[in-house]
């Protein structure tokens, strides 16, 4: 009874003339093209696993495309079979050939395909987590709610600290030793390679091999609290000579400001207690709770990739950090006078 009703209601659809109802009008072509462009531009940019600029990322992108194309083909075959069974030969099929299809298409082919995929995936895994070859650059990274501490080896043998911006030489492997100061964070530079969690009490590792000069963006890939989305960093991949010069320069102490306004700013910095949390190497400011500011002026962004490093943004960050990064440890210094703020900004942006 019910089956009959269903058949009746389906009848108009089944009886429709078999011809294409979709026509490629000029308008619809334009519409599809626009959609394709929109989707594809989303794949570009400094933070995309689909425009790889590192060996790991290339393998991951290749894996992604292989899976996407494979999945697309399987989808076409399955839909084709469904159309065949519903529209072309709707009559009952021979029991033995049906069973062949079910066992072949439902058990053997998926097992085969998934096994190949698993082997492919496992094969590229060791390269992603392997330690970098002897003599490679090692960068220590500590995830802190909600910013990044980067510890570089200094050219004279020791080490020094930077924050929220990492620079790498192109065409060389670099090993990141990852730690967390509080909760689980995830270290991910989509353009360069895979992501690895940073787990409190453990050290994890990620080796990247950048292949193209450029500026990329790294993010925290593991939800870590209120301002998780504001925990990013800039990644600059540069030729070896430029990198060496940069490393030498960053390893140095801050240069005393010569300009009177900036000099006054350095006094505001110290007397307001900024040095309780922030370090500016070479000055009395030796705090280690917040990001090192020794070369703050040379960074692209501020507040861990939240804002472009401009005087206006810096003013906003100093006076109302909570509105930019909720629950950040940094308190708002909205009580500083305009003159003090201007001097402080001149000082900080001059720390190159």
């Amino acid at each position: 009874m019910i089956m009959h009703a269903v058949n009746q209601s389906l009848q108009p659809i089944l009886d429709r003339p078999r011809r294409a109802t979709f026509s490629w009008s000029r308008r619809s072509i334009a519409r599809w093209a626009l959609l394709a462009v929109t989707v594809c531009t989303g794949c570009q940019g400094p933070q995309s696993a689909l425009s790889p600029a590192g060996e790991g990322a290339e393998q991951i992108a290749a894996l992604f495309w292989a899976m996407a194309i494979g999945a697309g083909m399987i989808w076409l075959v399955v839909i084709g079979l469904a159309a065949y069974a519903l529209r072309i030969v709707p009559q009952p099929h021979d029991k033995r050939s049906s069973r062949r299809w079910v066992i072949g298409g439902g058990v053997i082919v998926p097992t085969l395909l998934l096994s190949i995929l698993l082997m492919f995936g496992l094969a590229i895994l060791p390269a992603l987590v392997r330690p970098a070859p002897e003599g490679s650059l090692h960068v220590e990274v500590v995830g802190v709610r909600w910013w990044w501490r980067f510890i570089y080896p200094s050219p004279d043998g020791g080490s020094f600290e930077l924050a929220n911006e990492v620079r790498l030489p192109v065409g060389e492997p670099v090993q990141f030793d990852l730690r967390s100061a509080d909760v689980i964070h995830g270290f991910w530079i989509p353009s360069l390679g895979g992501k690895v969690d940073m787990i409190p009490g453990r050290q994890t590792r990620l080796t990247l091999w950048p292949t193209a000069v450029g500026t990329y963006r790294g993010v925290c890939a593991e939800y870590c609290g209120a301002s998780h989305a504001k925990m990013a960093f800039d990644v600059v991949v540069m030729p070896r000579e430029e990198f060496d010069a940069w490393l030498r320069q960053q390893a140095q102490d801050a240069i005393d400001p010569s300009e009177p306004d900036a000099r006054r700013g350095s006094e505001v910095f110290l007397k307001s207690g900024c040095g309780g949390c922030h370090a500016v190497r070479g000055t009395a400011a030796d705090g280690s709770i917040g990001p090192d500011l020794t070369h703050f002026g040379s960074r692209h962004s501020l507040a861990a990739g939240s804002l472009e490093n401009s005087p206006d943004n810096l003013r906003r960050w100093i006076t109302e950090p909570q509105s930019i990064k909720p629950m950040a440890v940094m308190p708002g210094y909205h009580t500083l006078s305009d003159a003090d703020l201007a001097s402080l900004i001149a000082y900080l942006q001059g720390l190159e």
Partner: protein
Amino acid sequence: MKLRLKQRATTLAIFFALMAVLGSMVVVSGVAPIRASSGHWAITKWFLAFSKNRSVATHSLGIKAPELDDLGRVRRGAGHYETACANCHGSPLRARSPVALAMTPTPPLLPPLVERRKPRELYYVVQHGILFAGMPAWPTQKRPEEVWDVVAFLVRLPQIDRDEYLRLISPETRPAPLPTADGVATAPLATCTRCHGADGGGGPGGAFPRLVGQPSEYLLDSLEAYAAGERHSGVMQTVAAVLTDEERRVLANHFGKMMAPGTDPTASPEDSEAIARGRKIAEHGLPDANVPSCIDCHGPGEQPISENYPRLAGQPTWYLERQLRLFHAGHRGGGANAHLMDTVAANLQETSYRDVAMYYSSLGNASQEDD
């Protein structure tokens, strides 16, 4: 039987309705006297006193008194008593004001009364006041320790004579002439110096916080915060709110430009372990716990520090410990920069408060830096 019950109920209902109408007529017509001049009937007086005592006894049941046998507490309690309570309740020094005596009920003389009350009952009354009796509540409900200071004084009150009282409220051991501040009436200045000392040093034994050595900017910011009720204190709000803007400015300048004399450190040397622990936190903070160093904002050090931040060196231990507890509880409030302490209060363990406080009080001199 049933009928008679129903009749009776009706009669009662009519009776009560009539009473209600009559009562309303008395109130609305205004014939009932509300004047204080005629006092209460004896029975009303007895009933009010009885119900008040019962209420205080019951509501104070869960309150635990801290250690009250502490001269610092007694001094602070006496100081506030002289400012805010003596006018109505009298003191060993003076009689109750005739204005207070004309109240109904009359504010009682306290010495005979406090002997019959437990400290927790005194605390309850001082903290919350008494409805319809003219006894005000403490100006803030966020400072129970201040109320206990007053209770510590009250329980001793029956044994305190005139000379003892004088010594408690004007504790100058080093006799100093009452200073005059330019343009300020002597009265408000005397209110400051009565507790904090003419030299601003906090009086003997560190019973009060030191004003000397603090920058005028910080003192003014604090006075204004008290006056606006943004820094909570039944003692200081009472004093600061009645000053004029000009008086607050001149008083802040007066103490702000004083030279800091040496002090008698309030911490004893046998506490050196605690002091060492406190010093470590003060100088380096606890970076792993997001606690910054104290000295970068509060000194002492070679760097000049902002005029808007208090200097902590030489402040008495009890005061610093209390401030940290208040910050931790979110009850301190304060001036425009008080929020800078939020991170510290949230992350510094309570067990460290005393260590840090003892370190700073052991430093003894409030302004070693010369900025």
